[in-house]
């Protein structure tokens, strides 16, 4: 092509040391303003589409894996604490050495009255929790966790009743089970009959989405029936749910109950929940496996993002060296790399969280409980961006070590 200089650009038209400010009418207007660092970052990212897709797939995989593992972990915590969360107490009186809510052993039978006599205690409720043998109507047996609670309560059990009623459980030999356990327990509808520990029972109510963390189905009944079915004394219970009067000295009440009932432990709501969760999630290793899965997801994400960012930086190293030669500070170039990392993280997170929500929605009516909360979504966002920024370190190290003199050898 002809490079003869435009006659209108001769001499004075060349930018002098002081730039002029006249805008010709035919010059296009300035496009929408995007910071040059961001522009350079996204153009670098999108320049190699295949590499970009690999990066995004890596981040999406990582986000989904971490979201699902964390969601299952939170779901497990929620399941483990489900009964306790539904019937919160100021204090729980539990047998000494209780490992978790579903590690039941009976109290002696005098706890309720002893606790009621402590100044500051307003209300005490018995709760019976016990393993029981369930015989299906069509034959075959199963072990269940039988939960007996008082009918007169500010927080009666069970909840989420989909068929039948809580009041129907007041009748003798009636129980409530969750609809999701029908196949396991050989039940098809309300009014079906089965046996618990050799005693005939009828399904009087059906709940929804009340599943235990373990493989043992919950079976709810009234407190008297629970005692009868498990063969414990009429005053005995597994746990005592203690509610305090307004203004009661919590520590004094706890110490007094402990003084009067030395063979028990008095736990706050949080302590009982945490103890139950710690037992199932950490002493059994289930939680560790979930956490390990999430960490693995993070590592995979970091490695993929680091590899692709490093590779992208190497591909654009001449441009970064040119920038350095033109006088760009190390901070400017680091900003470009970090912007690439953050952009990758934003896109990967958006796609990943959408996919994770889809998976969670698909798991809604299955035995798997996966929970997504705004806090978890927020934490995942921070983790994803943090992961991408961390993954950018190798690329940053590469780029800040550029010798700008290489621009003369290319």
């Amino acid at each position, binding site marked *: *092509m*002809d*490079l*003869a*200089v*435009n006659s209108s*650009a*001769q*001499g004075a*038209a*060349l*930018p*002098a*040391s*002081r*730039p*002029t*400010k006249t*805008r*010709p009418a035919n*010059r*296009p207007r*300035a*496009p929408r*303003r995007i*910071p*040059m*660092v961001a*522009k*350079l970052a996204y*153009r*670098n990212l999108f*320049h190699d589409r295949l590499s970009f897709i690999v990066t995004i797939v890596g981040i999406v995989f990582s986000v989904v894996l971490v979201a699902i593992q964390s969601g299952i972990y939170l779901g497990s915590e929620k399941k483990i604490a489900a009964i306790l969360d539904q019937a919160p107490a100021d204090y729980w009186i539990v047998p000494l050495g209780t490992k978790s809510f579903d590690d039941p052993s009976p109290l002696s039978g005098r706890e309720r009255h002893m606790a009621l006599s402590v100044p500051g205690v307003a209300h005490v409720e018995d709760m019976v929790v016990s393993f029981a043998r369930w015989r299906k109507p069509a034959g075959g047996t199963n072990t269940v966790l039988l939960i007996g609670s008082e009918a007169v309560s500010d927080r009666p059990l069970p909840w989420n009743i989909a068929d039948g009623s809580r009041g129907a459980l007041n009748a003798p030999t009636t129980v409530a089970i969750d609809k999701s356990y029908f196949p396991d327990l050989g039940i098809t509808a309300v009014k079906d009959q089965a046996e618990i520990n050799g005693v005939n029972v009828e399904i009087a109510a059906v709940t929804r989405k009340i599943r235990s963390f373990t493989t043992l189905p919950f079976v709810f009944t009234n407190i008297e029936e629970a005692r009868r079915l498990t063969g414990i004394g009429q005053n005995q219970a597994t746990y005592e749910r203690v509610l305090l009067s307004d203004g009661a000295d919590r520590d004094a009440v706890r110490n007094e109950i402990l003084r009067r009932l030395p063979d028990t432990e008095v736990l706050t709501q949080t302590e009982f929940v945490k103890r139950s969760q710690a037992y199932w999630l950490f002493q059994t290793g289930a939680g560790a496996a979930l956490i390990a899965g999430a960490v693995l997801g993070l590592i995979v994400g970091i490695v993929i993002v680091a590899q692709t960012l490093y590779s992208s930086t190497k591909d654009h190293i*001449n*441009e970064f060296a*040119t*920038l*350095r*030669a*033109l*006088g*760009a*500070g*190390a901070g*400017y170039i680091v900003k470009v790399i970090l912007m690439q990392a953050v952009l990758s993280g934003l896109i990967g997170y958006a796609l990943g969280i959408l996919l994770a929500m889809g998976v969670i929605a698909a798991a809604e009516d299955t035995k798997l409980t996966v929970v997504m909360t705004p806090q978890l979504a927020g934490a995942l966002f921070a983790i994803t961006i943090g992961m991408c920024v961390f993954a950018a370190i190798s690329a940053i190290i590469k780029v800040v070590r550029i010798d*700008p*003199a290489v*621009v*003369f*050898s*290319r």
Partner: protein
Amino acid sequence: MSHPANSKVILEAEGIVKILGNAPTQVKVLKNIDLQLHTGELTLLMGPSGSGKTTLLSILGCILTPNEGRLSVAGHATANMNAEGLANLRRKHVGFIFQGYNLVPTLTAVENVMLALDLRDQSGPDAYDNAAEALEAVGLGHRINASPSKMSGGEKQRVAIARALAGSPSVILADEPTAALDAENGLAVMDLLSRVAQDTNRAVLAVTHDHRTLKFADRIIRIDDGRIAGSERPKLPGAEPLQVEAH
């Protein structure tokens, strides 16, 4: 040696020594170089391959630091400056034009120029207008949104010149600016550089092997084996006709 009227020294190097490599294979590439660049002048730096031209250019552009000697650019002594200080000096006072253009391929022509302005903290519509003006001045007003991949070598080099001009630097250093161009485009680029050098606040130094460019030079410095071998001002009245040597 006389200089143009209103000319002043904008870059001054004195006793520059550069040693590359480590003992026992180290090489003394530059040996006690003294050099001044004057505003309003296009200076050509010529010499055979391996004579130290590019190393000298890198030192004058504050990209490499000399082992000995002192350098001053636009009144700023570079001694004791760290890498960021030198980058700052380059950003404010030095414009580069490279043999391979070194444009960012993912940015358009105007964005490449705006990038240089962004480094100088100029952004937004003003930066766009300044970049567009710089491109118009090099005859590329109609190609401001073209991608480097869609431009000819001559056009790319003119974008690189516009980028170097955009920040109004005191010194423009060009490394073999015509080496990748055909004769016509090479001459057009040199013509452009000679007009760039007419700014009384700016000096232009171009490393070149291309003897067709000699006619544009206000001054020619010859370097050989790391030493200044000669300097002449061919445009001064009474100057000897240029002796073209084949290297």
